[in-house]
């Protein structure tokens, strides 16, 4: 019997701790603090353009776009409206929904015509500065034998004459007399292909197309269910007109909602499965199965502590932390195993005495692991920092719970079944040879395999793939003419003026990197800030231009009087006493942008960007100096994750160094080296195995390796402690590694690729460490352990 005071003190401490944590969690409104937004997994660092763009893309128009395709039913009644009329009705119904900010049938040319008109009316502000810049460069590279205004007039007349022989001249004839410098036709030519054919015609296959914008970000709840309801309501109104009308639609909200639902299911499933497997391993290995229930409070205590500390430390915690956190079940149970299964030295040995014997290895294993994981707090990635705290807090609380729980029960020892204690006789020659062969094979894998490793990270692997929604997305986008053959670039700046300057650098790079490939951006309709600032002086230097241009037009066979609208506009612009600031001119253009084109430019305080669509497929990425990235770089963030992978590797190495140093301090150089060799060897074996199997690893394999090493060095410590006392290693080591392997094995089944990567890495390392622990004494033929009956 344990002393009553000890029992009641332990119970009181446990009850107070549990009550405090549960009360805090209940009052913390956990639902609002748990995020499923993938962007909460990555940091917000001012210098990282890719991340800042991803964040602004996610929050701004680009992510809020909804593409809808509607067609009349095949069995519609005679006289039923055609698809284009249904598209107009659908857009009207959507626009009346509070969750939808804009909805435009793409066959409606009014928004596009309005933009074209706005640019045309401001052509001498928006387009003239860039044209003058280009012309001046050509003039400067020539002989300069003719004065600049005369040269420019002759060149403009030559270009106009040549233009009339081009196919597009027929369509542009009405604007030529107002725009003989061809500012607008040139822009139209450069902007070709900025949107797919569906965007131009409003038709794709037999569908009529609608472009819409949700009011809220699709990554927020307001941008999901209310949008789905709005689409359903609008479609109900369309079906009231044509019952057979068909709708296909896509938007980021569909991916986000599906991902959220799947991750939530995964959290529940993985946690329950993990707990069941751990309890199952325990139940299979102990004599009185029902008493294995005493291990459950240890796991629950660890998880409760981990949830509380993590939620207290961060206002927003990503759900992935809790998914991966389910692994704690397999780790936290270790302390229960070690305390509960440790044989008594004598039948009357009290709990306190037994616990005192174990406190050194328990503290050594727990604290070294906690120290190791604490280094993850220095990671740039919020996910890794949160995981570091989750695991560290969970382990400390599991240890405390185990110490207190077993202090308040009468019988704190549990016998294990004989099979879990069974060991082959190390004196047997076959056993020794087989052990040596197995260790040799493992060493070959550990030394040869890691050289074949490949690393790649993709932010999309943080989420569960949704092939059905992806297929629907591709199908709808193809109706809009997006065949994925083009490359999309995003050019960023602190302001639109900055972004426009960067766009100029990017376009110069693109012209050299991809000669012959056309690139189109809304930013082309704007001058750079410098060009705009130079315009008044350029105009002053061209005071003779109108007269020279009249003569040149005459020489090239034009009816000069037809061009009166141009000369009038030129005179008005030159006579204007002041030029508006650049920002005002940009805002004026922005106001005219509606519909799909408005999503190709973004202007917010502190960040602005332009989208460029280029004809060519994938190829070399633009240099960092252009402040431009491709959308595929944004989609996978591999380049960025490479930085985090290196950072995580550095932190893991520092953490491991501290773990190793702690072991050397506690156990001396020789024994410390033997202890540390086991997890290190197991880790090398795991990487070797993955390398030989051709598996591409990511940041989470690295994290898994770190966790695996921390876990498996516990087994080495407990084995070393037993050997020091000439005792057989306790069965808790095998049970602990089996429980850890099971719980991480469950994670490897996850449909979230990175969770699966982490789970499989830890499971392999844990099993390999157990194998090394078991095989080393057998291979060496040592018989230092006092076996029963010897």
């Amino acid at each position: 019997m344990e002393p009553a005071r000890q029992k009641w003190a332990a119970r009181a401490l446990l009850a107070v701790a549990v009550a405090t944590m549960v009360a805090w969690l209940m009052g913390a409104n956990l639902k609002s603090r748990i995020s499923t937004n993938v962007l909460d997994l990555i940091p917000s660092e001012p210098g990282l353009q890719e991340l800042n763009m991803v964040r602004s893309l996610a929050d701004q128009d680009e992510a809020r776009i909804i593409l809808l395709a509607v067609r009349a039913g095949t069995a519609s009644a005679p006289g039923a409206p055609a698809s284009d009329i249904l598209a107009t009705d659908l857009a009207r119904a959507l626009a009346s929904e509070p969750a939808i900010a804009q909805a435009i049938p793409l066959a409606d040319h009014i928004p596009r015509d309005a933009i074209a008109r706005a640019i045309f009316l401001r052509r001498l502000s928006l387009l003239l500065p860039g044209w003058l810049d280009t012309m001046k460069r050509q003039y400067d590279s020539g002989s300069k034998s003719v004065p600049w205004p005369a040269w420019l007039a002759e060149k403009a007349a030559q270009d106009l004459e040549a233009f009339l022989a081009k196919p597009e001249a027929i369509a542009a004839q009405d604007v030529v007399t107002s725009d003989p410098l061809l500012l607008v036709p040139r822009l139209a030519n450069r902007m070709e292909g900025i949107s797919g054919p569906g965007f131009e015609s409003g038709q794709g296959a037999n569908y009529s197309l609608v472009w819409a914008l949700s009011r809220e970000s699709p990554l927020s709840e307001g941008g999901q269910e209310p949008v789905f309801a709005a689409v359903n309501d609008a479609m109900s109104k369309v079906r009231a007109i044509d019952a057979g009308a068909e709708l296909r639609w896509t938007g980021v909200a569909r991916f986000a909602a599906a991902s959220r639902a799947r991750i939530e299911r995964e959290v529940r499933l993985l946690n329950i499965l993990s707990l069941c497997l751990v309890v199952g391993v325990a139940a299979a290995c102990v004599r009185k199965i029902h008493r294995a229930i005493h291990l459950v409070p240890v796991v629950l205590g660890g998880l409760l502590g981990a949830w509380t500390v993590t939620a207290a430390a961060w206002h927003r915690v990503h759900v992935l932390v809790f998914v991966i956190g389910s692994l704690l079940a397999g780790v936290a149970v270790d302390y229960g195993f070690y305390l509960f299964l440790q044989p008594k030295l004598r039948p009357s040995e009290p709990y306190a005495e037994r616990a005192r014997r174990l406190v050194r290895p328990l503290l050594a294993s727990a604290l070294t692991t906690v120290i190791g994981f604490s280094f993850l707090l220095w990671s740039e990635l919020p996910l890794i920092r949160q995981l570091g705290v989750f695991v560290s807090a969970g382990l400390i609380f599991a240890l405390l719970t185990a110490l207190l729980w077993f202090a308040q029960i009468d019988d704190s020892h549990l016998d294990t079944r004989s099979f879990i204690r069974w060991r082959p006789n190390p004196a047997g020659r076959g056993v020794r040879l087989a052990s040596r062969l197995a260790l040799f094979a493992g060493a070959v894998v550990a030394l040869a395999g890691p050289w074949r490793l490949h690393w790649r990270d993709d932010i999309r692997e943080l989420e569960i793939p949704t092939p059905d929604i992806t297929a629907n997305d591709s199908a709808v986008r193809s109706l809009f003419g997006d065949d994925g053959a083009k490359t999309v670039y995003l050019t960023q700046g602190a302001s639109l003026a900055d972004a426009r300057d960067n766009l100029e650098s990017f376009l110069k790079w693109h012209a050299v990197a991809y000669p012959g490939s056309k690139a189109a951006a809304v930013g082309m309709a704007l001058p750079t800030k410098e060009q705009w600032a130079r315009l008044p002086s350029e105009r002053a230097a061209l005071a003779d231009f109108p007269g020279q241009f009249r003569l040149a037009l005459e020489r090239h066979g034009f009816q000069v009087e037809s061009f009166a609208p141009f000369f009038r506009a030129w005179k008005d612009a030159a006579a204007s006493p002041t030029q508006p600031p650049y920002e005002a001119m940009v805002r004026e253009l922005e106001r005219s942008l509606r519909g799909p084109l408005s999503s190709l430019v973004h202007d917010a305080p502190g960040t602005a960007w332009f989208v460029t669509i280029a004809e060519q497929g994938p190829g070399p990425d633009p240099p960092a100096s252009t402040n431009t990235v491709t959308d595929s770089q944004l989609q996978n963030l591999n380049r960025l994750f490479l930085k985090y992978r290196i950072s995580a590797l550095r932190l893991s190495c520092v953490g491991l160094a501290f773990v190793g140093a702690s072991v050397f301090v506690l156990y001396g150089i020789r024994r410390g080296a033997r202890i540390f060799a086991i997890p290190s060897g197991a880790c090398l074996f795991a990487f070797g195995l993955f390398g030989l199997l051709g598996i591409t690893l990511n940041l989470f394999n690295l994290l898994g390796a770190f966790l695996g090493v921390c876990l498996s060095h516990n087994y080495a410590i407990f084995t070393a402690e037993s050997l020091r006392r000439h005792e057989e290693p306790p069965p808790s080591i095998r049970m602990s590694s089996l429980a850890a392997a099971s719980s991480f094995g469950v994670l490897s089944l996850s449909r979230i690729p990175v969770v699966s990567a982490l789970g499989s890495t830890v499971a392999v390392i844990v099993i390999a460490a157990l194998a090394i622990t078991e095989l080393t004494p057998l291979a060496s033929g040592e018989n230092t352990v006092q076996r029963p009956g010897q």
Partner: protein
Amino acid sequence: MGWAHPLGAETVVIGPGTPGPKWESLIGALARKGPIRAAFTERRHFAFRREATVLTGVLRFSPRLGLSLQYMRPEESILIADSRGLEIRDSTGRSRDIPAGSGAAGVIEAILPIMQFDMPALYRAFIVHGEMTGEGWSLEFTPKDADLSEAFGSIVVSGSSTDVKRLEFKRAGSMHVEIDVGETQTGVSFSQDELKKYFR
């Protein structure tokens, strides 16, 4: 019903069931001509220019694949009009698609059913006037849609016997385009190279 043409020939409105045997026979013969290849000269008259801009090249027509205009002078380019819309290929090989039904496809897109002499389709979209003098004939297509009519004017196809000799695009008060069709090879079979280069 007919009306007096300024040149004296009688102009008739041609519609479903009204062309009469002479027109029926001519239109049937034109529609059955099959693939053709012909040299052409295009003259573009702009209201703001004293002289026409002259372009020359080779016209290819396939009832199945559509119409292809290979411009050779003053600048090389290829214009293809087919059921998918328009494609313009410049001398560097870069192409630009203008989908069928978009405003930009405009008048060029309308040539296709005219070159096919697909009269049922033409009757739906155009008011058709015909004029015949001996071997010579001309058909004028005026869009029924008032906006289209204002934007593109009318298209006149004229010829002799069963050969198309001229295409004209007339827009009141502004541009006027004439395409004179020169030596014509009928019933040609295009090589694989030609099909790849001039059609899609």
